[in-house]
C-alpha cells in the first residue's frame, strides 16, 4: 500500500523541478545583478595595487618604453579571435595607466602573453589631480620656488609629511576660491543681470519718456558700481590662485618620462602598494565620501555626483509635495464620496491602468503641455523681458516634478484607496454613531488609520520617480547644471532651473561621454548609489506594509 502511494505521488516530479528552476533562476538573477553592481560600484573606491609590467622584447608598449605601470581594471579574452591558437595565452589586461597628460589616453590593453615580469613596487605613487585625472609615478623630489628641496630617496617620511601638509593647504585654498566665485561673484552677476533687464524694460515704452533718461542714468551708475565690485572680487580670486603654495612635486613615470606638477593641483596622493588594510579602508571611505559630496570634473568623468544626488532629491521632494494631496484627495473621493457603481468601477480600472502607461508618454505630455504650453504662456505673461531666452518655456525642475507627479499619481491613488478600504467599517460606524460628521470621521478616524498605507504608496511612488529617466530627458534634466535648484540667492528655490539627476547621469556617462573608459567606473559608482537609494525606499515601503498587516491582523473587529 505504501509503495503504491509513493509511486502515485511522484508523477510529474520533472515538472516540479522545472518550476523550481524558474524560481531559482529568477532569484539568482536579482541577487547576481545586485552583487554585480555593488561589487563594481564599491571596487571603484577601493585602492588597488599598481602593477609594474615589463614587456618582452618586440611587444608593443607605450612608444619606446617597455615598462609600464597601471591598475589592472579587468582581464578579458582577446577580441581578435583569428590570432587564437589552442593552448596559447589569449587573454589581455585592460590597464589603467593614468597620466593622460603624457600619454593622451588613460587606459591601454596589454596582452598577457607579452608580459615578461610583473611586480608591485612599493614606491609607486598615485596623485589625484584637478586636471587630467590621476598620475601614476615614482616620486623624486619636492621643491619650492625658494630653492628648498626634499628628495624622496633621501627621506621618504619627510617627503610624505611635507606633501601632505601642502596638499591640505591647497585644498583649503581651493575651497576659498570656490566660495568666492560661486557665492559672491555669482551674486554680483545675478544683480547685473537684473539691472540689464530693467534697462531693457525702459525701452519697452511703459515708462513715461520724461523719466527714461534719469532712470537710465541711475541704472548705468548701478551697473558701473556692480562692475567695480565684480572686478574687485575677480582680483581677489586671482590673487588666491597665484598664492597657491609655490612648491612643485617631481615624479618619474614607469615609462621613463619625468614630470613636474604644481602642488596646488594635487587633490590627494597615496602609495597604493604599501597601504595596510586599515589604510585602504580609510581611503575607501574618503573616496566614497568625496564622490557623494563633490561636483563632477573633467566632463563628468572625475569628481563626484553631488549635484545629481541633490537634483534627484529636490525633484523627488517636489514631486511628492505635488502628488500626495492630489492622490489622496482623488482616493478619498473615489472611496468615500463617489456613488459606487459601474462608472466608478470603470474609473478605478482606468486609473489602475494609467499606472501601466509608459513613462515616456508622460514625458511627451510634459513637454507639450507643461513646457511649451504652460511655460510658454508664463514667459509671455511674466518674463517677456528676457525673451527670446525662455525662463519657464524650457525644461526645468518644476516641470520635471509635475510630469513625474502626474506619472505617479495613479500609484498613489491606488495605494491610498486600498489603505482607505482597509480601515475597518466598524471604526467608521463607531465614529459616526458618536455624532461625528462625515468629514470629521474621515479626518480624525479614517485618514490616521490609513496613513501608513498611504505612506507606503507615496514611498513606492518616490522610488519610481527617483529611478525614472525617460520622461526627464524631455522636460529638463541636463548632463551638467551650472547651479543647483536651491541656493543662497533669492528666491532660494529656483523652479525654472535645469538640474542633474542620478539616472540621467548614468545614461549620459555611459553613452555620451567623450572618454568611455574613464567614465565606466563612475557609471558603476553612480549606479551603486541609485540602486541603494531605490532599494532602500522599496525596503522601507515593504517594512511599513508588513507592520501594517500585522497591526490590522490584531485590530480587526
Amino acid at each position, binding site marked *: 500500500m505504501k509503495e503504491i502511494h509513493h509511486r502515485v505521488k511522484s508523477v510529474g516530479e520533472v515538472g516540479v523541478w522545472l518550476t523550481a*528552476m524558474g524560481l531559482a533562476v529568477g532569484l539568482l538573477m*536579482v541577487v547576481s545583478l545586485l552583487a554585480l553592481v555593488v561589487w563594481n560600484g564599491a571596487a571603484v573606491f577601493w585602492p588597488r595595487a599598481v602593477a609594474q609590467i615589463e614587456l618582452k622584447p618586440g611587444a608593443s608598449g607605450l612608444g619606446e618604453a617597455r615598462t609600464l605601470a597601471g591598475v589592472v581594471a579587468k582581464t578579458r579574452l582577446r577580441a581578435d579571435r583569428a590570432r587564437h591558437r589552442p593552448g596559447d595565452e589569449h587573454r589581455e589586461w585592460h590597464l589603467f595607466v593614468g597620466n593622460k597628460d603624457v600619454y593622451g589616453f588613460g587606459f591601454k590593453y596589454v596582452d598577457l602573453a607579452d608580459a615578461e615580469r610583473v611586480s608591485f613596487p612599493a614606491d609607486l605613487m598615485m596623485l589625484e589631480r584637478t586636471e587630467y585625472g590621476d598620475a601614476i609615478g615614482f616620486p623624486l623630489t619636492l621643491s619650492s620656488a625658494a630653492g628648498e628641496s626634499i628628495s624622496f630617496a633621501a627621506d621618504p617620511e619627510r617627503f610624505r609629511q611635507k606633501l601632505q601638509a601642502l596638499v591640505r593647504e591647497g585644498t583649503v585654498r581651493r575651497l576659498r576660491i570656490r566660495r568666492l566665485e560661486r557665492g559672491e561673484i555669482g551674486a554680483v552677476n545675478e544683480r547685473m543681470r537684473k539691472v540689464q533687464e530693467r534697462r531693457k524694460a525702459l525701452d519697452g515704452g511703459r515708462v513715461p519718456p520724461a523719466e527714461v533718461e534719469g532712470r537710465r542714468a541711475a541704472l548705468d551708475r548701478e551697473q558701473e558700481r556692480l562692475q567695480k565690485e565684480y572686478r574687485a572680487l575677480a582680483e581677489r580670486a586671482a590673487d588666491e590662485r597665484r598664492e597657491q603654495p609655490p612648491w612643485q612635486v617631481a615624479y618619474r613615470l614607469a615609462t621613463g618620462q619625468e614630470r613636474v606638477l604644481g602642488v596646488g593641483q594635487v587633490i590627494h596622493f597615496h602609495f597604493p602598494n604599501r597601504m595596510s588594510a586599515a589604510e585602504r579602508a580609510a581611503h575607501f571611505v574618503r573616496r566614497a565620501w568625496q564622490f557623494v559630496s563633490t561636483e563632477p570634473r573633467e566632463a563628468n568623468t572625475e569628481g563626484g555626483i553631488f549635484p545629481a544626488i541633490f537634483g534627484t532629491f529636490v525633484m523627488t521632494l517636489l514631486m511628492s509635495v505635488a502628488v500626495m494631496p492630489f492622490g489622496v484627495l482623488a482616493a478619498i473621493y473615489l472611496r468615500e464620496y463617489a456613488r459606487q457603481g459601474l462608472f466608478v468601477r470603470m474609473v478605478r480600472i482606468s486609473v489602475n491602468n494609467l499606472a501601466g502607461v509608459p513613462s515616456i508618454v508622460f514625458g511627451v505630455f510634459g513637454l507639450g503641455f507643461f513646457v511649451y504650453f504652460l511655460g510658454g504662456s508664463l514667459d509671455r505673461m511674466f518674463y517677456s523681458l528676457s525673451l527670446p531666452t525662455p525662463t519657464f518655456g524650457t525644461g526645468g525642475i518644476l516641470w520635471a516634478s509635475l510630469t513625474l507627479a502626474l506619472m505617479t499619481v495613479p500609484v498613489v491613488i491606488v495605494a491610498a484607496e486600498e489603505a482607505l478600504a482597509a480601515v475597518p467599517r466598524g471604526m467608521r460606524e463607531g465614529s459616526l454613531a458618536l455624532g461625528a460628521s462625515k468629514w470629521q470621521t474621515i479626518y480624525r478616524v479614517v485618514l490616521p488609520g490609513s496613513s501608513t498605507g498611504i505612506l507606503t504608496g507615496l514611498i513606492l511612488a518616490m522610488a519610481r520617480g527617483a529611478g525614472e529617466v525617460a520622461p526627464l530627458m524631455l522636460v529638463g534634466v541636463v548632463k551638467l547644471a551650472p547651479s543647483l535648484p536651491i541656493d543662497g540667492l533669492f528666491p532660494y528655490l529656483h523652479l525654472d532651473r535645469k538640474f542633474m539627476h542620478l539616472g540621467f547621469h548614468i*545614461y549620459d556617462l555611459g553613452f555620451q561621454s567623450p572618454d568611455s573608459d574613464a567614465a565606466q567606473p563612475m*557609471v558603476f559608482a553612480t549606479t551603486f548609489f541609485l540602486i541603494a537609494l531605490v532599494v532602500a525606499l522599496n525596503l522601507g515601503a515593504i517594512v511599513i506594509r508588513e507592520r501594517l498587516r500585522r497591526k490590522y491582523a490584531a485590530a480587526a473587529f
Partner: protein
Amino acid sequence: MSPDRSTDARSVSAPPQRPVARSTLLIDRAMHHLIKVGGVGIIAAIFAIFVFIFLQVLPLFQGARVTLLRMVAAPPGNYVALGADEWMAKPFLLAADGTFTFLALDETGVVEIRRPALPDDPVITAVRYRALAGVAPIGTADGRFSVVTVKYEARLTSAGRAVEVALEPGPLTPIGPAGAPVRTIDYADAGAEKLAAALVEVDGRIEVHAVRMTQKRSLTGAGRTVVEGGADLTPHIQGRPVEARVNGRADSVLVRTEEGEVFYLHRIGGEFALRQRFRPLADDPVDVLVGLDFLLGDESVVCTGSGGRQEVYSLFGRGQEGIRQFSRTKTFPSLPAGDYAFSPSLRNKAFLVAGPGRASLRYGTSERVRWEEPLPFVTRLARLGSKYDHFLLFDAEARLHVYGLRDPHPEAGWRAFFGRVWYEGSARPKFEWQSTGSTDEFEPKLSMVPLIVGTLKGTFYALVFAVPLALLAAMYTAQFAHPRYRKFIKPVMEIMASLPSVILGFLAALWLAPLLETRVPSLLGAAALVLAAAAGMGALWEALPGRLRGIARPGHEFLLFIPVLLLAGQAGWSLGPALEQWLFVTRHPVTGEAVADFRLWWPQATGAAFEQRNSLVVGFMMGFAVIPIIFTIAEDAFSNVPPAFRSASLALGASRWQTAMRVVLPTASAGVFSAVMIGLGRAVGETMIVLMATGNTPIMDFNIFSGMRTLSANIAVELPEAPLHSTLYRSLFLGALLLFLMTFFVNTLAELLRHHLREKFKAV
C-alpha cells in the same frame, strides 16, 4: 417584543439632543464639495493627458485650407510665366516678348512694366522662370540666350515692409547655329556647372541644343563664368521635340516630343548620352503627354496628359550597374481634360495644377490630393508661394487671384504613417522611418510601421524569455514552495521590479552586450545544461526511493537546486568555446581560413546581421523589468484558487504536479493571461533599456542578433530636437498616442479579466 423589555427601554432616559455646531456642518459641507470637485478634477486631469496628446496629433490628418485673399486686375498681354517674391508683395507676369509686369499687391496697386536691359535690345522669342533660383532665362530671335536674375529685396520702413525689385540680365551667349531663333529655353546653375538647353528653329525644323558653362569657385569668391561649348542633342531625339528641361544639378536634359515621348539625356563632362527613352501615360493612346515638370529636388517629374491624367516618374537605380532611370511611382486622380498650369512648391514635394475651372494641390511623396476645388474661371498661370503659405492663379481674363494657404503638414497622412510609400530614389514602396536628411529636398520618411515592428520585436524577445521563467517561478512559489519562503520571495521580486530601467539599460549595453558578443555559444551551453539539470533532477527524484528523497523535503527544492544551477551554468558557460569549435566553424571572410567564431558564423549561416547590441541582450535585460510583474500577478492568481480545489484533487490521488497542471492552472488561466498582458504592456513601453541596448536603427526584421528602434526609444531620441509643432513633433506625439493606446488597451483587457476571475471565486 415582551412587555417587560419595553418598560426597561422606557426607564433609560434618552440622552439630551445637542445641536451640532454650525462650523462642523459648514466644514463638512465645504469638504464634501471640495473633495467632489477636487476628486473629479484630478481624475479628469489625468485623462486630459490623452485628450491633449490627441489634439496635438489631430492637425496631421487635416487637409489644406485655402482662402481667397484678393483679386487684382492686370493689363492684358501674352503672359507665359508668373513669379512672386517670398512675401507675396510684388508678383510679376512675364510676357512672351520678355517684358515683366510687376503688380504691387498693397493698396497702391502700382503696375510697373519693365524690360531687362540687354545690349541692343534683341527680339525675345522664348522665356521661362525658374522660381527656386529666381532666374528667368530668355532666348532671342538671333540665337542667343541670357539669364535674367529677378532680385527682390525687402527693407523694413516705418510704414512696414517695402519690397524693391531689380532685373539683372547676364551676358548674351550664343546657343545653337548662329542666327537661328530660340523657341524654348531652360537653364540651371549648379554652382561650378551650369547648363542651358534650348529648342532652336533651323530652317523650319526644331533642333535641340545645349550649352555648358563652368565657374571656378575658391575661398576668395566666385570666378568668371567660362562657356565650355555647345552640344547638338538633336541626333539623340526621334520625333518632334516641343520642350527641353534641365535639372537642377545641371547634368541632365529631358526632352519631350509632340508624340508624347521623353528622352532623358545625361551629361558626363561635356558629353551627352541618351540614358532612357520612355513614354509616360502610354497605356492610353489618346491621352498624350503635354506637361513634364520637375518636383523639388529634380528627382521626380510630374507627367500630365492631354486627357488630364497625372503620373509621377522618379529616378532610381536599376539593374546590375544601378543606372538611374525614370519609372512610374505614383498615379494621381485624373483631372478634367484641358490645359493645366503647373507650379511646384519650393519647400516640399507639393505641386499646384490649375486649369479650366479647377485647381488642385497635390503632394508627390504621399500621392495625396491636399486640396481640390472647382473655380469659376479658366486658369492660365499658377504659382505656389515660396513659403508654401500663398498661391497665385492668373486667369484668362487677366485677373490675378491671390489665395492664402494653410497646410502645415502636407507630408503627413494615414498613408505616410501606416502605408507603404514609394520614396524618391528607392526601387519599391516601403515602410521607412527617417525623419531628417542632409538637404532641403529631403523627403521625411515617417512610417510608424518599422517602429511598431521594432516595439513588437523587443516585446516578443522579452516575453519569450520572461513569460516561461516568471510563470514557472510563480507556479512553484504558489503551489510547491513551503509557505515560509513566500515571505522573502515576494519582496525580492518586488525589488527586482523597482530596479530603475536606466540601470538595466546601462548594464545591458556596457556589461552584457560586450560579454555576450563573444560568448553566445557559452550562453547556449549554459541554458541547455541548466534545463537538462532541472529535468535530470526531476527524473532522479522520481526514480529515487522514498527514503532518499527525504533529503529535500517538498517545498525546498529550489534551495537544493541553486547549487546545481550554479554548477550547471558554470559548466555550460565554460563549455562554450568547445561548442563553438564544434558547431560554429566558418571561413574568415578576409583571410579565408577556418575560424570558430559565432559572430561570423551567424551571418553566413542565416544571412542576417550580427550586432553587438541586439535583441537577445534587450530581451534578457527587459526580462528583469517584466519577470517580477508577471510573477506577482500570476502568483496571486495561483494562490487565489480556492484551497478546496487543491485538496480535493490531492485527496483523489493526483500528484502535486497533476494538481497544479490540471486543476490550478486551468482555474487561474484568466489570471495568468492577465499577468502576461500586463507584462506585455510594460515591455511595450520600456524606453531606457531599448534606447541604450540596441543600435536604434529602424529596421524591420525579427533577427535575434540585430537591434531595432521602438516607438518609445524613437521619442526619446528625436523629440528633444524636434521643432515645436513641426510635422516631426506631431508625428512623435502620434507615436506616443499609439503607445498609450496599445498599453491602455492591453492593461484594460488584463484588468477586466482579473476582475472577472476575482468575482468568479468570491463565492467558493
